[in-house]
């Protein structure tokens, strides 16, 4: 066994850390598939305004309503005769944006809090962790209702709602990661050199906690997309006629008996996106955690 570890560590020296991660990620078929899907989706989401006539997405044609999938309308049409294919495609914009911004929000709030809690310990930690407990006891739907109600229903507020409800997650993960490195020698050394706590946290501790946080981020983007669609499934969400996937599902819910394709495709879209994020997240975790190397 010792031979093996040695050889691996020797290999490490040849590449930069990023290169090393990429090297391992490249070999992970799942992760690359996921990455491929995401790249395509991002490309579509970013450019769709340039090549797709909005009329196709929001234009109604009541006489064409509720058509089953056919060669003209690949995913069928909804109760207002809008083409579901383009609505689902256009919806990628919202879902991706929501996933990312929401997680950025929770990162921005959760990581510093978790780092402070883990680093200082004692009463500060107790306080932060109790507040975290309190927040995680609130159903995210209530959080959603309140935030969307107070600030109005908009895409950003939905992101905020989803983001805030996953803050506790990041606090816990970061704290746990900080706890494992805060007694490392290099931290002690920095402390002995009289560096400020803030400097130590940002220069020495956080960079060494990155991998669980990065992995968690990818996986959280996935769950943020699901949470956002759950919120809009329960009737809180994005302003019509924006075709967010959760909203499409809600609309389709009424027609699930006779026209289940109205629910099938947006659901599949959510699933594929989330799957892609999860695959990349898993791949990153494997690539970043040398313990799990095969």
């Amino acid at each position, binding site marked *: 066994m010792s031979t093996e570890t040695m050889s691996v560590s020797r290999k490490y020296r040849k590449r930069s850390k990023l290169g090393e991660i990429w090297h391992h990620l490249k070999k992970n078929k*799942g992760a690359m598939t996921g990455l491929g899907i995401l790249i395509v989706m991002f490309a579509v989401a970013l450019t769709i305004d340039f090549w797709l006539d909005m009329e196709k997405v929001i234009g109604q044609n009541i006489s064409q309503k509720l058509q089953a999938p056919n060669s003209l309308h690949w995913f069928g049409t909804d109760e207002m005769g809008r083409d579901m294919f383009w609505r689902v495609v256009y919806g990628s914009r919202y879902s991706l944006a929501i996933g990312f911004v929401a997680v950025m929000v929770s990162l921005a709030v959760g990581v510093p809090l978790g780092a402070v809690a883990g680093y200082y310990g004692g009463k500060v930690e107790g306080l932060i962790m*109790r*507040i975290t*407990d*309190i*927040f995680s*006891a*609130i*159903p995210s*739907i*209530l*959080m959603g*209702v*309140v935030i969307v*109600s*107070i600030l109005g229903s908009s895409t950003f507020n939905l992101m905020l709602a989803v983001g805030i409800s996953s803050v506790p997650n990041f606090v*816990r993960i970061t704290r*746990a990661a900080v*706890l494992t490195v805060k007694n490392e020698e290099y931290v002690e050394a920095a402390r002995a050199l009289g560096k400020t706590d803030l400097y130590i946290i940002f220069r020495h501790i956080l960079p060494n906690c990155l991998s669980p946080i990065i992995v968690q981020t990818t*996986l*959280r983007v*996935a*769950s943020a997309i*699901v*949470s956002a*669609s*759950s919120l809009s*499934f*329960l009737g809180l969400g994005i302003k019509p006629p924006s075709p967010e996937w*959760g909203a499409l*599902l809600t609309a389709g*819910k009424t027609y*699930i*008996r006779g026209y*289940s394709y109205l*629910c*099938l495709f947006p*659901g599949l879209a*959510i*699933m*594929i996106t*989330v*799957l892609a994020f*999860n*695959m990349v*997240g*898993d791949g990153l975790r494997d690539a970043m955690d040398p*313990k*799990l190397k*095969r």
Partner: protein
Amino acid sequence: MHKYIIKRILMLIPVTIGVSLLVFVMLDLAPGTVVDIIGGEMTTEEIAELNHELGYDRSVFYRYFIYMKGLLHGDLGTSYIYKVDVWKLYMQRLPATLQLAGASVFLAIVLSIPLGIKAATKHGGVTDNLSMVAALLGLSMPNFWLGMMLIVLFSNQLGWLPSYGATDGFKSLILPAFTIGTGLMATLTRTTRSSMLDVLRADYLRTARSKGVPEKKVVKKHALKNALIPIITIIGTQLGNAVGGAVVTENVFAWPGVGRLIIDAINQRDTNTVTGCIIMTTVMICIIQVVVDVVYAFVDPRLRAQYASAKTRKKPEKVQGGAAA
């Protein structure tokens, strides 16, 4: 151990105070009050009177104070909407929620742990790859969507299973339990697998093998018990989530559980019901956590020692698995 449990329970107090305050403030910030819901056709004066009666003419903190005074006497308040004790309301809904939580967790334990073990021991094999793909799919499916699709398939098309409510006993439990269980199964399979993979590398398994312990026993006895901690953590967390009511799933299946009660109460701005139920949920989660910790102690003698000293509690924080909706 006792000390530790008492400490855990004492910790409930600040959390309860915080949670209820947060709920009060949040519901106060949301537009509309319960008076708007029930006072549809009332005149302005009558509404004013009702506002006064329910304390809506004073600040949210006043109402919170009144509520907490009641809570001190063990009173969870009375629902404005149903005019029933929140305690009674909660207890009416709890069995359905527990049933669902129990069934889904049971399903997950029975299916996922063996699968996860198999995947780990035959690492890289067909079972491993298939089960990991399945688990990823399970993780990636939005709960409510899966529920809807299951309804379409099993209730609409095949007509095998009921689609709503808890009226048909075991049969009506299957679909919602499976819906909630899928995510849990996925997480649990992954956790079991990765935890087992960690453990399977451990030196003490080599020791066990070197003394001639049959491979099956190495896995089932020596490895599994060591891998159990993260597995139990996940089960505990999920059970905790589930007793809070699987909001969306309960909604899809019209399941008369706590989650739907809370959602209805939120929509009706029934502050007492929302607060009472969330407090009870917090308490339930705490109980589950304590039980989980006790189970930890049974499984791992090192943790037992830690609880005994009760000073530095270091909960195993190793939680894996991704999206939990």
